[in-house]
C-alpha cells in the first residue's frame, strides 16, 4: 500500500488527516505495526530548536530622498553587507556590534525587529550622479521594510557531535562551557524530533518543501552549506518571511568567550507515503548516535572519546572512562516539541498543506575540508633551535650564569635522561637570590608544570597557549619529551615581518 501526496493533501483540506509528531510516531508504529501505522497516520511533524549560527536576513529599505547607494551599512551598530546595490543588505546572525561586542549582534537585530522594536539604520556612500547622498541615519521597524526575508545557509543539522574537554582549564566554545578534566558533556540537537533524522534518505525533504521557520511559514531552498549526509550530518538552506515570525521561536544568544549566535525553531511536516516513511519516522533517540569529541584538541580532527546516543545524552549523565559525567543540552527539547506541536496544529487545521521536493537533495554527499594552498606556519619555522637548558641537579648559580650568557629569560630544566622536567625564569632566580633559604638546586625553584609545544604545531595554537597561560615562552619538545627548541614572544616577530602576512 502507498498513499499519494494528493490524497494526503485532500485529507488535510477536508480536515480528516491524522497528524502526529515524530515523538509520538515510534509508539504508534510499535503498537499498530508498520502496515496499520501507514494506513492510520498521514503526516508526521518534526521540530528542532537550537543555535544555528549560519543564519541571517535580506532586508530592503526602499529609497531615501535624495537617494543613496549604500556602501557601508550598520543596524544598531552591527555591520551588515553593503555589496547588494543601493538599498538592500544582508544581516548575518553572528556579526558583532562595533560598540557592544559579543553582547549584541546580528541575531539581536533580527530578534529586535521581530519583536516590534525599531532599529537604527546608518549608512554611508561615496555619492554618485544618480545616488548623490553620502550619509543616512534613520529609525526603522519591521513594518517599514519592503522585504525582510530570512535566508539561512546552514540550518537543521541532522545531528551534532557532543563535546567534552580533557584539558585542565575551562574552555568556552560554541558548544558552551566545557569544564576541565571531562567535567561535563554538552550536546545539541532534537534527536528523534529532528527533521533530517526522520528522512535520512532525503526522499521527502528537498527544494520547495514547506516548513515551519521561527513561527512562520517557510520553505526549503535546498541542501545547506557543509551538507554531509553520507556521515549523518545533513543540513538545509531555508528561507521564510521575517514579518510572520515570532520571538517565541527565534532568540538571539551569546556563547561566552565565543560570540553571538541565533536560536532558530524549525520544523518540517513529512507525508507518510509508504512503509519506508513509516520506518524512517519511527526513529528513536536510542537509534541516533554521535561522537563525544575532545574540544581540548584545537584541531579540525578532534579525537572521539566514545559513541553515545541521544537517549544517553538526554538521560542527564553519560559514562566516560568509568565515571558518570553530567550532560547539558544547548538546544531546547521543550521548544523543539512546541515547534512539532504547533506545526501539527497548522496541518490539522489546513493552514499548511504538503509538497514533495521540486528538486531532490543529494543523500550521499560528503563534505570536504578546505583546500589550502599555503600551509599555516608551524612552530618549527620560527622557533629558536639554539636552546640552552639546565640540569635539575645543578646549582642555582649555574642557572643564573647560563641565563646571562644565553641572553634569555627562560631555561628549560632537564633530568639525567635529557627529559624536560621543569622550567626556570629570571624571575624564579631573582626570587631565590632575594630570599636566600634552603634552595640551592635548580630542582628546588623550578616550575614543574611546563606548558610546551611541538615542532609541527601550528603557530596560532602556540600563540593561544602563550596568551591563555599569560606566559612568554614555550619549550618545544619531541615525542620523547626532549627539548628541541624554544618559542618566545620574540620569535613571533618573524610572523609580522611579512613572511606569512602577504
Amino acid at each position, binding site marked *: 500500500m502507498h498513499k499519494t501526496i494528493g490524497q494526503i493533501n485532500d485529507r488535510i483540506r477536508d480536515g480528516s488527516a491524522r497528524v502526529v509528531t515524530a515523538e509520538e510516531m515510534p509508539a504508534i508504529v510499535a503498537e499498530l505495526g508498520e502496515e496499520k501505522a501507514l494506513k492510520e497516520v498521514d503526516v508526521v511533524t518534526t521540530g528542532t*530548536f*537550537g*543555535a544555528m549560527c549560519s543564519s541571517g536576513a535580506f532586508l530592503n529599505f526602499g529609497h531615501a530622498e535624495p537617494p543613496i547607494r549604500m556602501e557601508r551599512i550598520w543596524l544598531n551598530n552591527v555591520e551588515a553587507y553593503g555589496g547588494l546595490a543601493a538599498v538592500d543588505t544582508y544581516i548575518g546572525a553572528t556579526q558583532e556590534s562595533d560598540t557592544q561586542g559579543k*553582547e549584541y549582534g546580528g541575531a539581536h537585530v533580527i530578534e529586535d525587529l521581530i519583536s516590534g522594536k525599531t532599529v537604527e539604520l546608518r549608512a554611508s556612500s561615496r555619492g554618485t550622479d544618480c545616488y548623490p547622498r553620502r550619509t543616512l541615519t534613520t529609525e526603522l521597524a519591521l513594518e517599514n521594510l519592503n522585504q525582510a526575508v530570512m535566508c539561512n545557509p546552514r540550518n537543521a543539522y541532522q545531528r551534532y557531535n557532543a563535546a567534552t574537554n580533557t584539558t585542565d582549564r575551562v574552555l*568556552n566554545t560554541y558548544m*558552551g*562551557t566545557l*569544564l576541565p578534566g571531562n*567535567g*561535563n*558533556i*554538552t550536546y545539541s540537537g532534537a534527536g528523534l524530533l529532528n527533521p533530517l533524522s526522520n528522512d535520512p534518505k532525503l526522499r521527502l525533504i528537498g527544494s520547495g518543501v514547506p516548513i515551519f521557520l521561527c513561527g512562520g511559514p517557510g520553505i526549503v531552498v535546498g541542501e545547506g552549506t557543509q551538507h554531509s549526509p553520507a556521515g549523518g550530518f545533513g543540513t538545509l538552506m531555508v528561507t521564510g518571511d521575517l514579518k510572520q515570525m515570532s520571538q517565541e521561536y527565534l*532568540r538571539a*544568544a*551569546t*556563547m*561566552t568567550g565565543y560570540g553571538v*549566535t541565533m*536560536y532558530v525553531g524549525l520544523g518540517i511536516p513529512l507525508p507518510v507515503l509508504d512503509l519506508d516513511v513509516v520506518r524512517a519516522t519511527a526513529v528513536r533517540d536510542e537509534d541516533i548516535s554521535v561522537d563525544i569529541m575532545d574540544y581540548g584538541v584545537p584541531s579540525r580532527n578532534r579525537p572521539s572519546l566514545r559513541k553515545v546516543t541521544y537517549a544517553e545524552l538526554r538521560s*542527564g549523565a553519560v559514562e566516560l572512562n568509568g565515571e558518570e*559525567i*553530567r*550532560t*547539558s*543540552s*544547548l*538546544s*531546547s*527539547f*521543550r*521548544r523543539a*516539541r512546541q515547534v512539532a506541536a504547533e506545526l501539527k496544529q497548522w496541518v490539522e487545521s489546513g493552514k499548511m498543506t504538503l509538497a514533495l521536493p521540486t528538486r531532490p537533495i543529494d543523500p550521499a554527499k560528503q563534505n570536504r575540508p578546505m583546500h589550502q594552498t599555503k600551509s599555516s606556519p608551524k612552530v618549527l619555522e620560527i622557533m629558536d633551535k639554539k636552546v640552552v637548558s639546565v640540569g635539575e641537579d645543578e646549582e642555582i648559580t649555574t642557572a643564573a650564569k647560563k641565563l646571562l650568557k644565553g641572553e634569555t629569560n627562560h631555561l628549560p630544566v632537564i633530568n639525567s635522561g635529557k627529559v624536560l622536567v621543569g622550567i626556570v625564569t629570571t624571575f624564579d632566580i631573582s626570587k631565590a637570590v632575594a630570599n636566600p633559604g634552603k634552595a640551592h638546586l635548580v630542582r628546588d625553584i623550578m616550575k614543574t608544570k611546563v606548558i610546551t609545544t611541538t615542532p609541527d604545531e601550528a603557530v596560532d595554537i602556540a600563540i593561544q597557549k602563550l596568551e591563555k597561560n599569560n606566559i612568554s615562552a614555550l619549550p618545544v619538545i619531541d615525542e620523547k619529551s626532549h627539548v628541541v627548541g624554544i618559542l618566545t614572544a620574540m620569535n613571533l616577530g618573524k610572523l609580522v615581518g611579512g613572511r606569512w602576512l602577504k
Partner: protein
Amino acid sequence: MKLLVTFSRGKGRKPIIAQAVRDTGVLINVERAVIDSSEGEALIEVPDDQCRLVSDTMSTLGAHVRILDHGVSYDESECVDCGACISVCPREVFSFDADWKLHLDEGRCILCGKCVDACPHRALSLPL
C-alpha cells in the same frame, strides 16, 4: 540561611569565622570563600533561627555581613529551557521537570556564578 561575609585583612588578620563559631557556638558551613592577603569574601550557611546572632557577632568583629534571601536570579522570559546551566553547576541547582522545563532548586545555590556565564540567553544573573 546564607550570609555573604566580606572583610578586610588589614588589621591583624583576625580569624573572624573561627571567632564567630566559638563566641556563638553556631556551626557555620563555609560554602565558598575567596581570601587573599588583603581582603576576603565568604559565603556561609547558618541555621535560620541563628542567622541574626551570627550576623551581629561577625559585624562586631569588623566584617560586613549581608543576608542573602535569594539564590541566582532567573529571568523566565529569557530562558528557552536549553539546559546549558545544568552540568556546569557544582550544586545541582538546575534540572529538567517531566516536560523538559528548567527547574531551579534555589536553596542549593551558593552564588558561584558559573551558570551566569554558561547561559547563552543571559537569563541568569547574580543578585547585587
